[in-house]
């Protein structure tokens, strides 16, 4: 089994899940509580990775990150090295790939909150910030946890996007799913199975935790 690939995948997934949540919380707040025009456009963009083949997303990410692509150029001027086929590039591409899994559970849990609790907080003199940290977040935490875990698990299992923008550089961009693919290509079925089984177990445990904690928030299963 390739421990290096496995650790790389864990590091990638954890980084992406945390970054995504930092981005998803304010976005979910804006989607759930603020009225604005064009909200539906943002909602569509967030949901796009759910329906788009990973190769399509990966292709556009690759074009953007290429040395002459807009993102690649910006990165080169900021950090002095290209973005494509690096770990950072992988993080950026995975960020978009797992976006819906980070945003939708949080929006759902925010929207399920009793609005009168937010009204009560405001009337009692709390700022929006205080209301967010003292009322919204503590009551919506199952949704936030679900989002964290789902985006982690989803990034762990990605293949197409990584293949497009990451290539296959050991220790840098060779994630566990790429590793499995490689082994099958080179007829190392035993090695592929070992890694696959471990990945299967990790994903199963992670999802069990989420649905064990709650299943009301964004889930393909009906409410208990």
């Amino acid at each position, binding site marked *: 089994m390739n421990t290096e690939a496995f650790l790389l995948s864990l590091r990638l997934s954890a980084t992406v899940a945390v970054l995504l949540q930092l981005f998803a919380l304010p976005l979910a707040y804006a989607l759930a509580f603020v009225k604005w025009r064009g909200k539906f456009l943002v909602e569509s963009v967030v949901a796009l990775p759910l329906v788009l083949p990973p190769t399509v997303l990966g292709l556009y990410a690759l074009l953007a990150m290429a040395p002459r692509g807009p993102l690649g150029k910006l990165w080169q001027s900021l950090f002095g090295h290209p973005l494509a086929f690096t770990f950072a590039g992988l993080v950026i591409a995975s960020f978009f790939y797992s976006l819906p899994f980070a945003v939708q559970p949080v929006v759902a849990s925010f929207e399920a909150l009793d609005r009168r*609790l937010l009204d*009560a*907080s405001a009337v*009692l*003199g*709390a700022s929006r910030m205080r209301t967010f940290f003292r*009322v919204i977040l503590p*009551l919506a935490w199952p949704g936030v946890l679900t989002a964290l875990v789902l985006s982690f698990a989803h990034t762990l299992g990605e293949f197409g996007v990584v293949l497009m923008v990451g290539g296959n550089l050991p220790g840098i961009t060779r994630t566990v799913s790429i590793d499995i693919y490689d082994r099958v290509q080179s007829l190392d079925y035993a090695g592929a199975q070992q890694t696959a089984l471990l990945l299967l177990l990790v994903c199963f445990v992670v999802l069990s935790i989420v649905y064990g904690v709650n299943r009301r928030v964004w889930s393909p299963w009906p409410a208990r």
Partner: protein
Amino acid sequence: MAGEMSRAMLSVEIRKRFSGNGAAPFILDVRASFASGFTVLFGPSGAGKSTLLDCIAGLQRPDEGEIHLDKEVFFDGARGISLSPRRRELAYVFQSLALFPHLSVEENIRYGLAKLAVAEQYRRVENLVAAFHIGNLLQRRPGELSGGEKQRVALARALVTRPRILLLDEPLTGLDASLRRAIQGDLRAWNAANGIPILYVTHNREEVDAIGEHVLTLADGRVQESGVPRAVLDAPRSVELAQAAGFENVLLAKVVEHRPADGVMRVSLENSACEIEIPLGEAAPGSEVRVAIRAGDILLATEAPHYLSARNVLPGTIESIEARGVLVAIRVRTGASFLVHVTPGAVRSLELAPGQLIWLVIKTHSCHLVR
């Protein structure tokens, strides 16, 4: 503030329009002043009572108008001023109470005191907790409280902030009368020392009598009447209000003749030959009016009564008898259809049964002309 006995005046003059999704739009159009002390907001559901409170609290924004507390501007549509809810320094107890379910009772009560030093927070909580008899509940979560306890905690959380206005949206619904009276007593004692405007929304006629120094009735987004409860609610002048105020019989009537010498007029009910005498009102002979009569103000007799002061004695037939707890609702068909409330004992001793011939006895002054 406690001790100072501020005598504040809240003035409201606002309009807000809600598009009705195909139905007629609802328009809240209210002009009213609220002095310190209790004002009961009374009216049928959908009259705009909660929306009015939301506008005063700053949770909904009126389309136009002004809201002032004395000289301080809460809202001024023309000048584009709308103070955020947290700067209005008022308290609002919602119908749902909206206690924070993840915080203990004590944390709930201290929630609005974040700006104060912790020692001062605890001092204030202690005072209020004693006044509202909730000392033994402080470490519990709202989910572990009974209905009455929750209502006390919600009131304490509101009052501990020393608000300048208190908005109460049916805060005591669902409580039995004795518990309700006890909490109302606590509230009254509190305001004896604080003297702020308290707007108290209720559907319950008993609460109006228990609480109300002043009542303002709303129907269909507009102020109908304003005054002391007895004057306003015992002689309602609109159909919606009559129904909300507990007048079970609101009958269509046509004025037959005026008898100014007796201060009465005769009306025929529901296009039938059935005529009754009601107090003289502003309605020309021939015009269509409505007459409101409480079900409890009608007497029943099994034989034609004589030698009575009551002027209206109508023969009829019992259509149905329905027990509703401590009273029995009897529907009687004369020319019109009347609902009569009697006690279960009366039903037994008179041996009332459907189909039976019966006489209704109604005093002239139990009949109220409504619009």
